[in-house]
């Protein structure tokens, strides 16, 4: 095991960390005290200096996202915490909220100071009710202690934070869909522009940040943006949480400095492949990113640019490990079923394409496929890619194309003619 600096998981396993007392005893809310002495723009500058990028999946620079919010529009500004965590293979935000809820609240208050936001919501997926209970309790404690409410830490700054529960829809993790859902509608993604920074929740300036992004803020304020930027690689600063699942000896959530070698991570941190089997493939960033073969994993570093160079993406850091026994055709079929189920149905290429691809794959597995079906699937992928309002169709295209291209013979083996 390495002894790298931790930003998110420092106190994750410590007893009683959910309580305000223990959180404070371990240095909690010191960053907020410091942030309260800073100008809002100085906080934004610090986050820009840190190089922090959105940890939900897109990797957009957080400070830059914040700086798009227009000032003095006469409308309120909203901060929405995206805790809809639904990308298959991802379970890090759940851990952060369950074990260290005040870290999220502190991060959110800091973000609200920077954005001059006075009303904020945590959009938690409905399935995480037991997680929401922990967060709600922490919010109650924060109100009672004067950290939230009419005057944050006795300063002239009012802030309310509420938990808003989703009710089961993957698409609501997409930020404009999340906003629609929060407004009380079907979670149909919106056409951009306007971007949420200009017109989001209730047509007001809105920033949507992931739980992991927000929980990096207390560390950045305490240690300075430069200290954060000193960690990681040229374009990937700081640390990243990886949720590791599948055929691995020690599944779980790990925090490593960006730029950590993928194979060392799997073998040293995660205990290697289950039952002494050989690695077959890795989906490094949630099921929506292209799969890497075992050979392709060699030499790859866990950061935005190295994974991009390898033909995949860091995504949410939801790493799914597949051993040599994995049937890749069946795996792709399960993945394709997910996207077909979760398509919101708004855009024709996605509504029809995800369902069509899933059907072709099921047909293939049932022994009723033809060799031409493989090219048909690739054609369906071409017809969906880049032709929809949100990235859900592309999220289906990436596994379809990468599985079929890299493991074509396994699909051909199912073809009868």
């Amino acid at each position, binding site marked *: 095991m390495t002894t790298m600096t931790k930003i998110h998981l420092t106190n994750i396993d410590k007893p009683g960390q959910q309580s305000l007392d223990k959180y404070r005893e371990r240095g909690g809310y010191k960053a907020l005290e410091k942030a309260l002495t800073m100008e809002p723009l100085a906080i934004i500058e610090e986050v820009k200096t840190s190089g922090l990028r959105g940890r939900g999946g897109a990797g957009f620079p957080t400070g830059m996202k914040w700086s798009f919010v227009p000032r003095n529009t006469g409308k309120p500004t909203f901060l929405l915490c995206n805790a809809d965590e639904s990308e*298959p293979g991802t379970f890090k935000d759940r851990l952060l909220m369950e074990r260290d809820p005040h870290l999220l609240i502190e991060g959110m208050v800091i973000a609200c100071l920077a954005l001059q936001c006075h009303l904020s919501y945590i959009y938690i997926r409905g399935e995480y009710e037991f997680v929401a209970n922990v967060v709600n309790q922490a919010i109650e404690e924060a109100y009672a202690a004067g950290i939230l409410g009419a005057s944050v830490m006795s300063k002239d700054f009012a802030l309310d934070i509420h938990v*808003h529960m989703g*009710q089961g829809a993957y698409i609501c993790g997409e930020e404009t869909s999340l906003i629609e859902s*929060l407004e009380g509608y079907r979670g149909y993604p919106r056409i951009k522009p306007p971007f949420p920074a200009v017109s989001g929740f*209730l047509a007001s300036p809105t920033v949507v940040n992931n739980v992991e992004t927000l929980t990096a803020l207390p560390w950045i304020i305490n240690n300075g943006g430069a200290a954060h930027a000193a960690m990681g690689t040229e374009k990937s600063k700081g640390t990243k949480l990886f*949720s590791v699942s599948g055929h691995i000896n020690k*599944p779980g959530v790990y925090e490593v400095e960006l730029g950590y070698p993928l194979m060392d991570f799997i073998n040293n941190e995660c205990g290697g492949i289950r039952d002494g089997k050989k690695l077959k493939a890795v989906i490094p960033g949630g099921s929506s990113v292209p799969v890497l073969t075992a050979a392709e994993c060699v030499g790859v570093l866990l950061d935005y640019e190295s994974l991009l160079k390898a033909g995949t993406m860091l995504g949410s850091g939801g790493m799914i490990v597949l051993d040599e026994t994995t049937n890749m055709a069946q795996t792709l079929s*399960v993945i394709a079923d997910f996207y077909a189920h979760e398509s919101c149905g708004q855009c024709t290429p996605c509504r029809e394409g995800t369902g069509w691809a899933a059907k072709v794959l099921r047909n293939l597995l049932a022994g009723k496929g033809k060799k031409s079906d493989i090219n048909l699937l690739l054609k369906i992928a071409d017809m969906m890619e880049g032709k929809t309002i949100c990235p859900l169709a592309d999220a289906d295209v990436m596994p379809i194309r990468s599985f079929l291209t890299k493991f074509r013979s396994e699909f051909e083996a199912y073809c009868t003619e």
Partner: protein
Amino acid sequence: MSEIQFSEEAKRRFDTILSHYPEKRAALIPVLALAQREFGWISDEVADYVGQLMDYPPADVLSVASFYTMLHRKPVGKYHLDVCRTVSCWLMGTYPCVDKIKELLGVEAEEITPDGLFSWNFTECLGSCGTAPAMQVGDRYFENLKPEKMSEIIEQLRKEDESK
């Protein structure tokens, strides 16, 4: 006016939910979740009632309810088992567990046992990939499932019901 009514406690909860939003419409989904908790599922009658409370036509309420998989448009058992079939759970053995559930309960997906106690269905990723396979029952997760653990879990739920 609707025949059904929220309990006093649910009415208080309703007021609290509304107080969290600058616009009433934003409370619709949490109110639907509250209604499901009260009445078991979102029937046309429940949608009517929610529409009255929220000042929206029932068709609008139903268009929203039908989008979200956790809002049931059909009755479910008192204990509804949502079993994750997404990639990590599937890799770790969703289907052997589902076979066991079917054998123990004697019902297919979306059917309810004759005593009204149980129903089950597949669900997509629960965010429990590191503790796969997993299922959700109400506000609880059961994780690291194995076929041989299923009868124990179902017995536990049965006992919970008896002691209520």
